[in-house]
């Protein structure tokens, strides 16, 4: 049997309906809540810069603040009619749902891995351009090993 999806695990949580322009999360507000996108289109912004749009049903929002115990680091708002499941105590939900927790961890690792793949490719493509190359080297070190890395790395 396939493991239940996050959307399935969150189905009994309260449903929140958003119209285009409605704000779900404000940058700097206290974290701790989790949201699972059921349908619609959300945009993530940080420092006033749009970072990504989320459209995939089951997409998780707020997990970084839950895991890191930090304030929300981005604004999230609807750019079309959207529905999300709202989990008020994200940490309690994850700790009581090992399947959800592992999916979150695997999802984070996948994001890290996809990002690393792009950064490593760009790093290699910009081998002959020292300024760009050093930017991608810094990013690669941060992604792969969480640190500044070896200054003599290729």
């Amino acid at each position, binding site marked *: 049997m396939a493991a239940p999806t996050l959307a399935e695990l969150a189905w009994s949580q309260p449903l929140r309906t958003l119209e285009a322009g409605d704000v779900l999360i404000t940058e700097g507000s206290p974290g701790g809540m989790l949201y699972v996108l059921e349908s619609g289109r959300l945009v993530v912004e940080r420092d006033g810069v749009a970072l990504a749009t989320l459209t995939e049903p089951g997409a*998780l929002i707020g997990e970084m603040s839950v895991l890191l115990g930090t304030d929300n680091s981005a604004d999230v708002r609807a750019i079309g009619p959207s529905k999300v499941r709202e989990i008020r105590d994200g940490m309690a939900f994850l700790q009581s749902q090992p399947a959800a927790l592992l999916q979150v961890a695997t999802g984070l690792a996948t994001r890290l891995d996809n990002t690393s793949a792009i950064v490593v490719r760009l790093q290699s493509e910009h081998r002959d351009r020292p300024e760009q190359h050093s930017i991608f080297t810094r990013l690669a070190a941060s992604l792969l090993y969480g640190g500044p890395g*070896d200054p003599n790395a290729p």
Partner: protein
Amino acid sequence: MTSLVELIADQPTRTLQPGEVLMVEGETGGDLHVLLLGELAVERGGVVLARLDNPGTLVGEMSVLLGRPATATVRAAREARVRTLKSAAKALEADAVLATRVAALVAARLDATSALLVELSHEHSDVPHQKGLLARIMATLIGAPKPKAGETDLFTVDPALWPRGPM
């Protein structure tokens, strides 16, 4: 919050001599290691990518979480001591607190990289090509799907939304 090292305090430790291999690129070990002291070198294709010397550094978590072989070889750069959790995937399924700590460490790396990307995108706001690449990296980091092989249009960020605000 209890540290990972404390959470797996009952697991065995191992001392590695300089040059001794902990993990081999391409092999599926399934173990999670935490560095206790000393220094490890991360190598890919025989080239050293990074040296790890922070106690508490996690090694092997990507392979465990993604269920795939190691993408790098890790060996002791000088004498090093690690604590090892065997068959880590099973242990994580059974222990929500442990799984939370591992997830938090991965989240911390994403968060640090995200902050670095925002900083870089401000520094390079006058170089459109550079900024575009950084935007693409950020979208992937936030969770936009991986571009398909051969896909040239990398931008999933709505161009109308980037850039916005004070740059």
